[in-house]
């Protein structure tokens, strides 16, 4: 099981019900394959950085879900078939999240170590410089 993030752009003139129906459909696909839909974020109407299919605006929706690779394949296939979706981007983020978590822990550890040991040494250099500037 991998965690994916899926950002896609729905046609700006699509009705809210159509978007809901699409989301429901996608939720069904994910749940049907034993995946888990974690997050649905509707960013709403946004200006596109460049025209897509002659449209300057798009309705952005962000999904985050945990599922296998075949689910992604199916969802992307649906996106391509559906004329509601202008563009989509799928990013696998589980490894990234893990990496971020690791970094965060490292940072915390370092921050804890600093006040104990490294403080006097580290503060030695900025100290002489700062008062001079202030005065």
């Amino acid at each position, binding site marked *: 099981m991998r965690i994916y993030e899926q950002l896609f752009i729905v046609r700006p003139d699509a009705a809210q019900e159509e978007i809901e129906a699409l989301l429901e459909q996608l939720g069904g696909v994910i749940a049907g394959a034993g995946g888990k839909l974690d997050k649905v974020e509707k960013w709403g109407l946004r200006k596109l950085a460049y025209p897509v299919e002659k449209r300057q605006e798009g309705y952005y929706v962000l999904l985050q879900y945990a599922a296998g690779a075949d689910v992604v394949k199916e969802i992307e296939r649906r996106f391509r078939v559906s004329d509601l979706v202008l563009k989509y981007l799928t*990013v696998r983020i589980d490894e990234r999240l893990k990496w971020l978590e690791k970094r965060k822990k490292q940072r915390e550890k370092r921050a804890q170590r600093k006040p104990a040991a490294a403080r006097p040494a580290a503060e030695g250099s900025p100290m002489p410089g700062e008062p001079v500037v202030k005065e």
Partner: protein
Amino acid sequence: MAEGKGGKPVSASQQPTGTDKAVVTRRQYFRRKKVCRFCVDKIDDINYKDVKLLSAFLTERGKIVPRRLSGVCAPHQRRLSNAIKQARNIALLPFTTR
């Protein structure tokens, strides 16, 4: 750091500026030392969704600002350019603007 450099006899050329952040280059002029924004601000997550952050590293025409101009360190520039390219793909950022 400023003090260490000031101790050298060559420092006569350094004195006019007075600021300790200016770094003496081999030539006559002085250059402010650039530091990587991501290292300083401790930003780990360079995400393609963060349009505000990424667009700071684009030129007016939508090009990615080179490292030598922005001062971003190599690992961060790598992540940054990847994020920008992802954002471009989903029309959050422009490929180019006229």
